[in-house]
């Protein structure tokens, strides 16, 4: 009977397994706030860059629009940045609401958004690595 009682108590107190408590909920909420801020700042920065490109006397966008290759790269970059901004914003919203409302579904969605962000970031980091590798061998070749 004692064993059964301990098991039931353990289950009720949820001593096994991880959970969101007071101390880590504060850290998660802060992380959510920072990620949303990054998303908002990135949107503002992209909007400003597009605006400057449009009103600039050099007409960057008009010149670039003529080059198919440049346009494909630009659209691909926008898609990647868009996905990053979306996942960061969603992570921020879902995680904050999950912690505040103690909502298991939103917490799951928030973790999923963070995973999506990490996957897209991994692609960017891999591309940056290839670029570093190219630059590294270029530098070594020129200095020899």
């Amino acid at each position, binding site marked *: 009977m004692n064993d059964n009682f301990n098991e039931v108590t353990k289950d009720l*107190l949820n001593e096994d397994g991880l959970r969101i408590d007071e101390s880590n909920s504060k850290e998660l909420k802060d*992380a959510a706030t920072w990620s949303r801020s990054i998303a908002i700042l990135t949107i503002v920065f992209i909007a400003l860059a597009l605006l400057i490109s449009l009103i600039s006397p050099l007409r960057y966008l008009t010149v670039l629009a003529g080059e198919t290759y440049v346009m494909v790269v630009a659209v691909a970059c926008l898609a990647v940045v868009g996905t990053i901004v979306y996942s960061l914003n969603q992570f921020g919203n879902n995680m904050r609401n999950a912690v505040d409302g103690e909502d298991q579904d939103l917490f799951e969605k928030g*973790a999923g958004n963070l995973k999506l962000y990490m*996957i897209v970031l991994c692609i960017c980091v891999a591309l940056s690595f290839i670029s570093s590798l190219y*630059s590294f061998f270029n530098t070594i070749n020129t200095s020899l």
Partner: protein
Amino acid sequence: MDISFSDEDKLHTGVEVEGAVRETMQSLVKWTSINSIIGFVSLGLSLISGFVTYNRASFFNDTENMILMAISLISFALNLIINISLFNFSRQLKLALANDDQQAFEHAAGHIKNYFRMFMIMIIIVVVFAVVTGVMNGMK
């Protein structure tokens, strides 16, 4: 003696890291590890390339090159801190999931917060640098 409880009797325990969330977190550990390892290797390569470039005799005679070097060093330091935060997040989360360690989970949450904070600082620096460069080019 049979002990039974209804849902209302249960103590309030909040959000749990179980089931689908645990699987997502395990996948998250894998992706963050890959990210941080590639990041560290990239940083190492950049550092070596930087040293090779900066060691050229004529490099330090030019003020523009000196400014470029300072910016590269700041960027390197920030990237290093970001990668360390990501690596620590991955390590602590892995530990937390393996041992159901609540303290490690708290540390992981702290590291992801630091990661986003440093990322924000880096974006602000990039934006300021882009604006300053744009203004300086416009004044020339």
